[in-house]
């Protein structure tokens, strides 16, 4: 439809697609930051915790977070 093309042109002119990509990139960066923060907070929890089981669980969680980070990179 002609009108669709016209709107597409308007979108390209205003670089609306770029906005979408930028949003995705920003979200990815935000997620990376959240993962790094989580690793730090888990490290703190390990130091504070007295339970061996809890320490083990937190260590596993840290490993997972690192894997997630690697996957995002």
């Amino acid at each position, binding site marked *: 439809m002609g*009108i*669709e093309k016209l*709107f597409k042109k308007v979108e390209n002119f205003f670089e609306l697609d770029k906005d979408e990509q930028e949003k995705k990139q920003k979200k990815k960066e935000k997620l990376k930051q959240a993962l790094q923060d*989580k690793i730090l907070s888990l490290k703190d929890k390990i130091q504070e915790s007295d339970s061996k089981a809890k320490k083990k669980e937190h260590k*596993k*969680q840290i490993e*997972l977070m690192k894997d*997630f980070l690697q996957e995002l990179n």
Partner: protein
Amino acid sequence: MYKKYIYFLFLLLLAFLILANENAKEIIAGITIFLIGMVFMEDGFKLFSGGILERVLKKTTSSLPKAIFSGFLATSVVQSSSLLTIIIISFLSAELISLSGAIGVIFGSNIGTTTTAWIVSSFGVKIDIAKYALPMIIFGVVLSFKDEKSYKGFGNILLGLGFVFLGIAYMKSGFESLKDAIDLASLAVEGYLGVLIYVGVGAIATVVIQSSSATMALIITALAVGQIEYYNALSLAVGANIGTTVTAIIGSFKSNNNAKRLAVAHLIFNLVTAVVAIVFLYELADLVQFLSSKLGIASDDYILQLALFHTIFNVLGVLFVAPFTNIMVKYLLSIFKTKSVHVTAKYLDKAVINSPEAALSAVQKEVEHLYDNSVEVISHALSLHRHKYIGSDDISCVIEESLTKIETDIDLYYEQNIKDLYSEILYFCTLAQEEMDSQQQDNIYRLKIACRNIVEAIKYVKELQRNIDKFLYGKNDYIRSEYNNLRKNIAKTIDTIYTIRSLEDDLDIISKIKVLKDEIEQLDYIQNGKIDRLIRENKIDSKGATSLINDNVFTHNIAINLIESSITLWVKDKDIRTLGRGQ
């Protein structure tokens, strides 16, 4: 039967009016165009807002005053109390808001609808809005061809507004021409008899037109051209409020208890408000006149005074009824109780099928309901009570002590508590998907997969139950200990999932689930090694070993299916879900 004849008679009467009188044709055309406009505006707002309305309402109904204000604000913006009612019913069904919160929104919504009268009074009849209507319709149509929801939604809003303006213009022109032929004002009845007659006429007109906003537009345009008296217009406005309740009551007959409760709350509110308005009609009119002078509304500007009256009597209604909300809630809960042997959907309501965000919330809650039912049957099949092991510090100890058999007919439980619910979810999803965009359809798809995971877990537990009953109470201590381990693995899975449900952070949820999943995989491996050793050491016979090997697989599958469904249900962020599954 009678309904069919009444409808046929209505069509005949309509045809007669259209053919017999040119002015009546114009007025009726105006009403229909106005109604088309309202439908387009409602659809447009649904597309344009992209769920903003739902999100705002979810968060702003925690107290009655907040709920009333939210209802007022939302209806003033959307100009559709029916859209708001649909969303509120879905939230109520999904237990996202309380019944008193929902009633508060409905109270506020009643005040919000009075803004339509202000718009029509201020712009509709005072300026030539028809000349704005056509450009709006043209641009509205052009924009509505777009695929993107925001363009399409904005196009529909423009189109709707254009039709509303055009409808008002037709009504106004129809009444102006009619005045030359018949003077309806000469039929005005004085005193309380007139009040009651016109209240009845307003109510009937709203039931027939099915929109109080359209009736108000009709009253205002008729008043603007002097076809009705001011006091009769006030009575008609009160009647329109009663009429809209009848529409809601009829609409709720086929809905669930929540919709019925809200419809009755609406009826109580509108009847009380109407009685107060009728009894104190002349005093209210004096109050309107007093406030008009303070607000700068001319003493002969009856159109704006009508709009002010409409707002005042609805506000007074809220002030009068709101203090009794808690009593109303108790009464409504007592008159609509759920009685059913078969567990049916708690949150799915056909009224929300056309509202994608609300429908999605309803499906999410219903799948959680299905999950809870499945946890009940799985626990009982393993002779476990949920309240004993969930949240316990020592699950192993609870499992070893829970040896009293719980008689559970899984087939019967499946028939009564799972099958119908599962079918209802799938049917609802199929209907709701039609109105959804691709992202919402993806969400529905993952929720359907979660249902499948849950149902599969129940099927595996049926296999497991037979041998639990056989070996848990048998003489072989080794095999009994192994079956206790299997019960423990499932109980631990359910307990961990219960814990993560209350967590807010998706990363916390996914990491705990992944740790649990890794443990389940490891336990499967260890369990297999243990079974091999027991066979080698002749501690279990070949029959027992075969059963244990199979049941080990079933246990693993139950746990994995529950874990998969929990990722879908409780990890909100799509990217984090993908990360969790990608490992």
